[in-house]
């Protein structure tokens, strides 16, 4: 795949919309969702190549979204973002099959590198 199809799920709207524009400048066309529920609907409609998922969101939280993605789309890589970053969160996400786990704040180049890595299948998941 040349340009991976990215889905950003984060309740912080200012963050995802700017991130979307910055990724667009880099020739990506990411889709965004500001709730876990909306994210799952987008995935169901047309699965992306990679999901960037915030851990803590009101309503359906990141862990639950991750669990549901695993159930429905076992091969879809998920990169977790967390402002909390406790060891326990990390373990929970990795046990559930997250491809990578990053603490916020995160540099866009690091994120891009992660997206490249997981979409090229360099990291086992599922």
């Amino acid at each position: 795949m040349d340009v991976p199809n990215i889905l950003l799920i984060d309740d912080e709207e200012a963050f995802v919309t700017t991130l979307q524009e910055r990724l667009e400048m880099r020739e990506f066309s990411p889709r965004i969702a500001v709730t876990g529920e909306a994210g799952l609907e987008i995935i169901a409609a047309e699965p992306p190549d990679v999901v960037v998922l915030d851990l803590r969101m009101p309503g359906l939280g990141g862990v639950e979204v991750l669990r549901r993605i695993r159930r429905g789309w076992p091969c879809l890589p998920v990169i977790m973002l967390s402002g909390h970053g406790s060891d326990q969160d990390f373990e929970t996400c990795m046990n559930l099959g997250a491809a990578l786990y990053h603490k916020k704040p995160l540099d866009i180049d690091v994120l891009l590198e992660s997206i490249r890595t997981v979409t090229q299948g360099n990291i086992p998941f599922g």
Partner: protein
Amino acid sequence: MVHVLVVDDERDFADLLAERLRTRGMEVHTAYSGQEALDLVRALAPEVVVLDITMPGMSGLETLDAVKAEKPSPEVILLTADSTLNTAVAGMKGGARDYLTKPMDIETLVAAIGEAEGRRMESLSRQRMAETAKLAALGELATGVAHEINNPLQVVLNEVGWIEELLLEAKLEESAQSEIMASLELVRSQAGRCKGITSKLLTLRCALDKRGATTCLPDLIQTLLKARHERITALGVRIEENWSQELSGLQVPASEWEQVLANVIDNALDALEAVQSAGAKITKELVLGLRGNIAEGEMEVAVQDSGCGIEEHLLTRIFEPFFSTKEVGKGIGLGLAICHGIIEAMRGSISVRSTPGHGSTFTIKVPMAVHAHNEHNGPEEPASAKEE
């Protein structure tokens, strides 16, 4: 062995009393004046002081005041002659644990010393419990604050990056562009400072105090249930207990587990009460299940209730500090956050499964290595990191 300081200006009396207490297995020192007593309390930190009220120089009551001001302060038993009984009463108000009238029976004194020592242990353990709770709450609060700040920081840094990228395309005058870039770099570096602070906050979790008293879980549960007996009876809750033999024999840090289990049990009782007050017509049996066992290097303790349950969207939030589903005034939302902090400090985990309307189960898992360590009260690191 109880460590006792006998204080009396009559040297023969003090020495004899000390000797008789030593034959009963106590560690005893003697002082013959108030000042000497105070010096020895500071130097030796005895657990119990047996203090004569009538002494020349620094009087018994003055000595009592000075001794009780020391930290940690020993328990004090006053010795009085009949004529000084009023002074003894004043002494009780001043913090003495007990008073005995001279000449007293040695067995009475031994019993009084034993009781004073018991009270001292109790109050120390209460203090430790309060400290444990404070530390855990602080750790949870710090974690919560770090999280709340990291999210806006992410927005700030992302916007800075975005502005920089837009600037490069905007074809501004070179001097204006470099000024704006310098200013953005300043924003970025200041945000970096904040990031440094939040990552420090995230490490500020309480470390376990390894000196504490230990207990076994079934005993601890009995104490907790006894303290809640009235509420349990009033609600008509049936208690189901199931402890594996291995777990019953295991010594665990008392104040940490008491703090955790007291919180979880109180929440379970709240959930059961909610069922009762919601539908008096529904004849649903109220059950509080408590069980524990040891498997695969971990001890696992579960507290289960047939109460109102927790809605799914709240499940991920209930361990957050200051998050509460209870009515205003009934809880400030720190109980489970504290539990979470304590359990995490023991390198364990606490999790919940719940079905709204049917009840909840809180499961606590702690690696055995932590407890093996506490059992010996030794200074060495937990026996094996492999078991984690």
